[in-house]
């Protein structure tokens, strides 16, 4: 990615999640789309307020789970029926009830791993740099007790002065301009 220059966006700092959620809802209502919320702990309503609900992690998890299920079930079938057929107590070679447990375990394992790594990949991780860390109050507050709403410069509505005035209407603790 080529190095970007100029303004990344504006961040408004709030004292509590309620004010953040209200501001985010209003901003979305007023037509803002390129924006994000940053909170020290998960605030689901903030995600909902900016309509950040849909992501591909559930789909990746499901696909991973089905792959795990299919892989282990076929592996067991292949071993027991084709590769190394053993007569175990006179049971049929294709004894599916006994295959269920490992197949189930692999379903869970693959679902978990897919969810974890899928989430990391979709987050764009590992990433070594994010412009928001240029804002000193963000560095201190975002992981402890402050709630941030960021309007990004990529939004077509973005104009530095009017956006700043707009954020001020939510009575945040501060509004800071963030450089790339």
């Amino acid at each position, binding site marked *: 990615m080529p190095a970007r220059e100029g303004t990344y966006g504006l961040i408004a700092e709030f004292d*509590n*999640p309620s004010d953040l*959620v209200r501001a985010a809802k209003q901003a979305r209502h007023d037509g803002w789309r390129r924006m994000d919320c940053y909170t020290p702990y998960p605030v689901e309503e903030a995600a909902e307020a900016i309509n950040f609900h849909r992501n591909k992690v559930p789909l990746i998890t499901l696909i991973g789970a089905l792959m795990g299920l299919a892989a282990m079930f076929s592996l067991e079938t292949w071993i027991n029926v084709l590769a190394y057929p053993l007569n175990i107590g006179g049971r049929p070679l294709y004894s599916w*009830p*006994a295959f*269920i447990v490992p197949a189930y375990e692999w379903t869970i394992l693959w679902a978990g791993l897919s969810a974890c790594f899928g989430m990391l990949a979709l987050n764009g991780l590992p990433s070594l740099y994010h412009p928001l860390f240029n804002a000193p109050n963000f560095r201190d507050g975002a992981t402890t007790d402050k709630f941030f709403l960021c309007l990004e410069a990529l939004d077509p509505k973005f104009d530095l002065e009017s956006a700043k005035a707009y954020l001020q209407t939510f*009575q945040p603790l501060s509004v800071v301009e963030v450089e790339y």
Partner: protein
Amino acid sequence: MAHESHTKTLPADLSAPAFVDGWRMRAIMVGGIFSVVAALLAFADGSLNHFMRAWVLGLLLTFGWSVGGLALLMVQYCSGGKWGLLLRRPLEAMSRTLPLVFAYWVVVAIQMKRLYLWAAVTDVTAALNSGFINEAQAHCIEFKRAMLNPFAFVWVSVLCFAIWGYYTWRLNTLAVRRDQESPDTTPFWIKKLENISGPGIVIYSLTMTAAVIYWVMSMDVTWFSSVYGLLFLVGQGYSVLALSILVAISLSKAEPFKTIMRQTEQHDLGKMTFAFVMLNIYLGFSQFLIIWSGNLPGEISWYLDRIRGHWGIVITLDFIFHWLVPFSMLLSRDIKRNKKRLVRVCQWMIFAKAFDLWWLIEPNFRDSARNLHFSWGMLEYIAVPVAMVSFWVAYFSMQLKTRPLVQTNDPHLAEILEPEHAQA
């Protein structure tokens, strides 16, 4: 802006909304209609046999809600959590339906001989010689006589009912007294109810296991399974949670549940239901896998009775109805957070539970084991449980009306009135 400004206020009138009376009237009407249908079917079938088997199904469903509701009430007193405050009064109302469940059980006790081989056969040798029972059954009836006899059936069940009745009475009266006292008594009440509920859960597990062994498992005298009680325990969690969500969402159409029912708690309840759906199939399948692997003549016949002769279709459907459908539905976060859809899933789960019980009960009897076939009596499995459940719902609605729907002397109340984004 002050944080407190978004806090909701509890309405002044906390009593159950008027439409609960409507539930009662409708339930009584449905119950009446299906009672007539059940009676007609008994005539068409020419015997009360299937009527009584279906009666046991209805007993188990309503027993699951009544005593299972009591158990969930005790669990939430021990575990805490805001979902508990939401469900407390509906669960209390479920537990107070115990007298009706007892009345249902009395019918089973009177008609014991139709349901249990060990009650029907008094002279084992004569029954064996006449071909009424086989050798394995004769042996088991004699060997288990000390436990499986009419007197033990009655006294064990009555003792269980007395214990559940005690806990129902104790928790229900204390809950009312708790609301009459000032908020600074809250820590005392939390501890007090925890101390009653903790041992109560253990005692519930034991008594419930004893009850289902007598009422259901002993229909087949030859077979036993050590996971049987746990299977029913989880099954009760499954159906109680489904019913609780159904009740809570239906109540949320009006005050006071409109104010206190939040999406967060609904989602939490959905997740918990999902856990019970998983645990249910886990235990059911483990039991099957262990018996299938062992492949011993004494044990496997129970499953063969329920797989061969077209019962295999029923158990395949049972797997789909009872597990696959609720599992797939409850995986979705959207469905768990959507009132209408979650209600549909819960209704489905209650149907699936009844379907599962049918598969569990009917093949115990000689005319149906390894032989799924239609008879008028088979339709009793629809008519009788629907009637019994309807009358139970009427009784439950009546109980729901008797006290305010929200426990006020509880620290969770302030939290549940906060807006949803106010906590981690």
